[in-house]
């Protein structure tokens, strides 16, 4: 079955079983391994991508549900070589340890900020609770997200 899928702005035509999880299409068919496999059941959030602006768990999203849709992955979050503000904050705050969950963490945070540019602490915690980190980087994640929020506020104050 041929499917059309737009990923990070590029449209692909794929011949693949409709029930294949989007995760494996991204990783193995389109060569975008930044999105990770953690649990296969939507429990850990490592595979989080944006589908039509919504965060989805790509490990349990059949590719047919993404057909004709627009997918953004960690590889397409920044603009060209320019990093997304969250990615820069992740580097500045030294968030990653093993780093395996961080693509999913960043995608969840990016969706939060795209819908709510100035979330409070509780809102950030609630939005990030679906993403597991076995290394325990949770406090640096909060600090990194809050620094982006503070940066946005400062930029708006200047404008």
């Amino acid at each position, binding site marked *: 079955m041929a499917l059309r899928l737009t990923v990070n702005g590029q449209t692909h035509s794929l011949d*693949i*079983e409709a*029930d*294949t*999880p989007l995760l*494996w299409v991204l*990783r*193995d068919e389109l*060569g*975008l*391994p*930044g*999105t*990770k*496999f*953690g*649990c*296969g*059941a939507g*429990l*850990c959030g*490592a595979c989080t991508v944006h589908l039509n602006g919504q965060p989805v768990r790509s490990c349990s999203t059949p590719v047919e549900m993404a057909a004709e849709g627009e997918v953004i*992955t*960690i*590889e397409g979050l*920044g603009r060209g070589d320019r*990093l997304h503000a969250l*990615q820069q904050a*992740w*580097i500045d705050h*030294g*968030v*990653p*340890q*093993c*780093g*395996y*969950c*961080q*693509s999913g963490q*960043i995608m969840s945070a990016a969706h939060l900020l795209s819908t709510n540019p100035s979330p409070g602490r509780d809102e950030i*915690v*609630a939005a*990030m*609770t679906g*993403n*597991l*980190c*076995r*290394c*325990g*980087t*949770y*406090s*640096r*994640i*909060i600090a990194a997200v809050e620094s982006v929020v503070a940066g946005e506020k400062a930029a708006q104050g200047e404008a």
Partner: protein
Amino acid sequence: MAVNRRDFLKVGAGASGSLVLSLSLPGCAGLPTGYEEGTGEWRPDAWLEITRDDRIYFTLARVEMGQGTYTGLTTLIAEELEVAPEAIKPRFAPVADEYKNPLYKLQLTGGSTSLATSWEPLRTAGAEAREMLVRAAAGVWRVNAAECSASDGRVIHPNGIDSMRYGQLVELASKEILRGDVALKPAAEWKYIGKQNRRLDARAKSTGKAVYGIDVSLPDMAYAVVTRSPRYGGKVQSFNGDEVRAMPGVLEVMEIDRGVAIVADRYWRARKAQDALKVQWDFSGALGLSAPEVFETYRKAADEDAGESERSEGDIESVLANADTVVEAEYSQPYLAHATLEPMNATAWYRKDHMEIWAPTQAPDLGRIAAARVTDLAPDEVTINTTFLGGGFGRRLTQDYIEEAAAVAFRIDQPVKVIWSREEDTRHDLYRPAMLHRMKAGLNNGELSGWDHQIVGPQILNWYVRNAGPAQFPWTPKFLYDTLGKVGVWAEGIATPKDISAIEGAIEYPYQVANIDIRHTHIDPGVPITWWRSVGYSHNGFAVETFMDELAHEAGQDAYRFRRRLLENEPRHREVLDRAARLGGWDTPVPEGRARGIALMRSFGTYVAQVVEAGLEDGSIRVYKVAAAVDCGQVVNPAIVVDQIEGGILFGLTAALYGEITLEQGEVQQSNFHDYPLLRQYERPEVEVEIVDSTETPTGVGEPGVPPVIPALGNALFALTGKRQRTLPLKADA
């Protein structure tokens, strides 16, 4: 440290005119025999390479699994080489004797040893390379080398104006011969050690570009999944191979030692085919144990066998017989899974008498043995490429996933990647052993007069020697592999280091008591086990520090001061205890509905004390705050120390609140994060970490954050509810 630097520096011309320095990691003169047999000389162990165009490569012999070696070890080289750590490109080491961990004689990363074993050798390597570059420049300028300096990848002329890039000097520098030791920089001149706060791998890991084992991709690569016996030790009897082989995309269905492998052109097709696979198992030699039997077996063993003496001081029997009060308690802890977020996986490619493997492994030389074992290949016909590891925690010291990939790849003509599902990862783990502890202590007028600790459970070495023995002697004929493994166990303490996995954290009991008796009753129910972040300290810490709390309570004393008074001769223990108490507000009023608990443990050379503030909310245990004080000697990267301690605390809290693997007739009952949960963001306590300023040799921080938090939380809950919990995980309604 007695270091003979002359013996281990070798200089050669590298490829394309680069300066290649090989260096070894010399050992401590005081190491027990067995670590330094033979020549007494340490062989090369790591490689530094500087190219003509100023690229600097550092071959990292200790893998990066989140604990920070990629940054920390690079910082040591950078400090003495006089370049920013960011200017060095680390590369993961191939398997070679040069890269063995001097403490284990195996190329493995574990035991929080990376920084301690690299501290002097890596700085020395950086210093010697710098010295050779300086001398080369001095020769060109015809000036005294001692008047030149190095900075930021350049050698500076005594006039302070002229300079030459390292790259310009590599060819000349390779001809320099050093005689005598090169002095290391005094601490006051350090630019990066103790100050470096950035992680060198943060960018790659924030952009999706870091390559983990699961990300390896090769031309025409196939995917394989393996169906393993649901009960450990079960054997394949028969399976419906023809039916499965006819399914879409399936290339091969084959029996391997560890089960039945399905190879397909796509991962998902292999998984779907697995649903159709029906295997008849022969369970005659398989594990048949159920959860409660484990502890019944342990109790019976403890009754019948008082155990091997591991530490004995004074006369415990008469002291207990004459004590005013004898306090007794039994503690137990369940099996625990590692739950690395990247499931087990490996990629292998067999071509003409050679196999190349890509894998996230903590022990690549053992991976080589695992591959040789299941193929016709010799270990040196197997190349292992190590990737970033999506968590390790001890799980990736065992090479079962490499063994599977090698067995499959050997029988097909294309590269193949084996990926475990989360369910397989949870059910086919090797676990932190379930353990039982019987404690007895005497109190006279509130004074602790005797301490008796019987540890009951298996030891890990018995499970590990299978590949570790042959890895130390890779030239051994394969039919002797199993013998060598057994010799490893027989020779424990003689030819191999004593396995202290069951007793560590108990035998170093730091409190000043005249009569101490510590014994280990060895009993192994046959459930596969291995190292798990902080190993023996994870369970002994809970038993020792909870029982200390019980004794303080029995003696009517404050839990902090009761410990403190018994640490007169242990200043480093006492210092972290005092600091944690202060940081955690031990003597300040606790908010309504909450209580505090304290615990202390030295593990892997690092001292950690913690105060936990906890309460109960809506029928659940809620941890509000953890204050930790750490003494890990000289700090190299303060941010990584804080991260590792905090990460260890969350790892320990996950075990304390949720961790439990149970068996039902030999089958592991847990499968994924719904029934083997990890601590989530909303449960995160506020964590404060204070680091003791120290110039002692640095010690590891990857594991020591874990042990104290489990008893500290239990002690807080006792203070809150008055009910003592002696079994893990802790319950809100105990």
